[in-house]
């Protein structure tokens, strides 16, 4: 169409059924998520970490078997070694989660989003639902890949375990659940700080720097605080062998979910109150 033509809007038929609903916002967020290159890359890297790192560790351990001490051979932990990729997957998912919301603030897209859905909160719910569903499904598949791939490699020296072994299935699901819940927490963090760098710094600070700082405290104080740190509380569910100083896997995860809910509530309040 030439720019000089007098433009006319095509007449629309009845549009009375077209109004904002949560399922439609979910559809929209689904489109938004997959139409960005950064999403596809981050999710690919997260999947690769969760599915591939465990088998890679297993491969290294099996190939070095003849060099391993008896002690090392006895302490090979087939569940945790095959699922250890979640540490890296968690980082990729957390950064992506922060960016799904801070990317909107950075580019101004948030204004378009809020003009289309001025009640605001449904936008946050839709983002959480889409992001968590996608992450949970992907990470669950990746965790099964990691576990089964790892066990297949461990069979070489018969240190493999079955999915029916104690803690095995719980750890597979736990890795995916913890990574997903971290994503939810980070969407909320991103909503609160609205800056990519700030959101990622906050995540890294709370998850990785804070534990080190607590170490500086007198050991009895540090030991009292450690179980409550988010990564310690939530990480137990993604590990077969538990640190006796920490909460039980499901108890700790419940606490982590509690933290997440609190941060989401703060994010929701700020999203409603602040000027966009």
């Amino acid at each position, binding site marked *: 169409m030439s*720019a000089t033509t007098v433009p006319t809007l095509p007449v629309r038929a009845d549009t009375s059924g077209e109004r904002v609903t949560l399922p439609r916002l979910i559809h929209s967020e689904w489109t938004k998520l997959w139409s960005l290159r950064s999403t596809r890359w981050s999710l690919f890297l997260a999947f690769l970490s969760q599915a591939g790192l465990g088998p890679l560790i297993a491969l290294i351990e099996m190939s070095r078997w003849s060099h391993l001490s008896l002690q090392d051979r006895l302490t090979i932990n087939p569940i945790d070694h095959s699922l250890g990729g979640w540490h890296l997957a968690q980082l990729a998912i957390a950064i992506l989660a922060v960016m799904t919301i801070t990317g909107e603030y950075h580019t101004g897209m948030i204004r378009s989003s809020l003009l289309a859905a001025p009640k605001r909160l449904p936008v946050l719910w839709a983002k959480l639902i889409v992001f968590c569903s996608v992450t949970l499904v992907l990470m669950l598949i990746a965790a099964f890949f990691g576990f089964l791939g790892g066990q297949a490699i461990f069979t070489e020296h018969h240190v493999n375990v079955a999915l029916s072994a104690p803690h095995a299935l719980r750890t597979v699901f736990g890795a995916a659940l913890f990574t997903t819940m971290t994503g939810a927490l980070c969407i909320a963090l991103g909503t609160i700080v609205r800056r990519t760098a700030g959101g990622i710094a906050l995540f890294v600070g709370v998850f990785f720097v804070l534990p080190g700082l607590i170490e500086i405290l007198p050991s009895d104080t540090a030991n009292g605080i450690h179980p409550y740190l988010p990564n310690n509380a939530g990480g137990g569910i993604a590990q077969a062998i538990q640190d006796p100083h920490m909460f039980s896997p499901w108890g700790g995860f419940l606490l982590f979910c509690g933290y997440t809910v609190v941060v989401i509530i703060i994010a929701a309040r700020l999203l409603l109150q602040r000027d966009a």
Partner: protein
Amino acid sequence: MIEVNGISKRYGDTLAVDDLTFTIKPGIVTGFLGPNGAGKSTTMRLILGLDAPTSGTATVNGKRYRDLAAPLHEVGALLEARAVHTGRSGYNHLLALAQTHGIPRTRVGEVIELVGLGSVANKRVGGFSLGMGQRLGVAAALLGDPATVILDEPANGLDPEGIRWIRNLLKGLASEGRTVFLSSHLMSEMEQTAEHLIVIGRGRLIADTDVATFVSTASYGAPVRVRAAQPQALAAALTAGGGRSTTLDDGALQVFGLTTERIGEIAAAQQLVLHELTPGQVSLEEAFMSITKDSVDFQHADTLPTDATTPVGAGT
């Protein structure tokens, strides 16, 4: 129909919008004029629910924007600041917006064709020129076939061709009975597009009037052009009548301090023949300047600082 009622917005110590009240009627293009920093964008953001007013209300079709069930069908908005994720294609941007309301894909294609972005719709927005970005913003505004259109500086970044395009588009929308409300600092553009004007300065309402009235009000006191059979005699009579005149190159008189009515009366009393009597007319731009000059936030210094090291533009 947009109704703004006693709306104010305070950011810290700054009162960006100060007790504004006006109504934007459907069927015509209403221009929103004001110097930079006058509060135009803020007012539009208040209408659109992006910012919360400190006091007062703004409604579209009788409802607060936030309470609209299908906002894209009721109001199409183009903001001055970019509101598009640069990593997404234009098509996907519009598709994601359409999906919030269940607007079909075919409509996305229609608005892309309408704004002339068909060839670049699948490219990432980050590579768009300013003009293409504006067109994408217009496409988003028209996605829902809205009854009200609010555009903040739509001509920004458009070439003359694009400006003509958007002018025709807006006039067309108004003629279909829609409410069209646009801000611009390009007075010449406003003169050709708008019928009604809302003028603000420092957040306050300065004028709410049609373009012709605005110009004639501002023209009050502008010199009147007079041609007469006996210019010297007329000049003397006008001076005696309290006016002041100078002779122009073509022999016409430029008269200050008298209205056209008064000049005609003086000439008749002296039985002097007039060949021309033209009221002083200023352009919309001059009218705007004269009316808003007290409310410009950053007046230029009348004299440049003599100290050469002082940066030019360090205001008063």
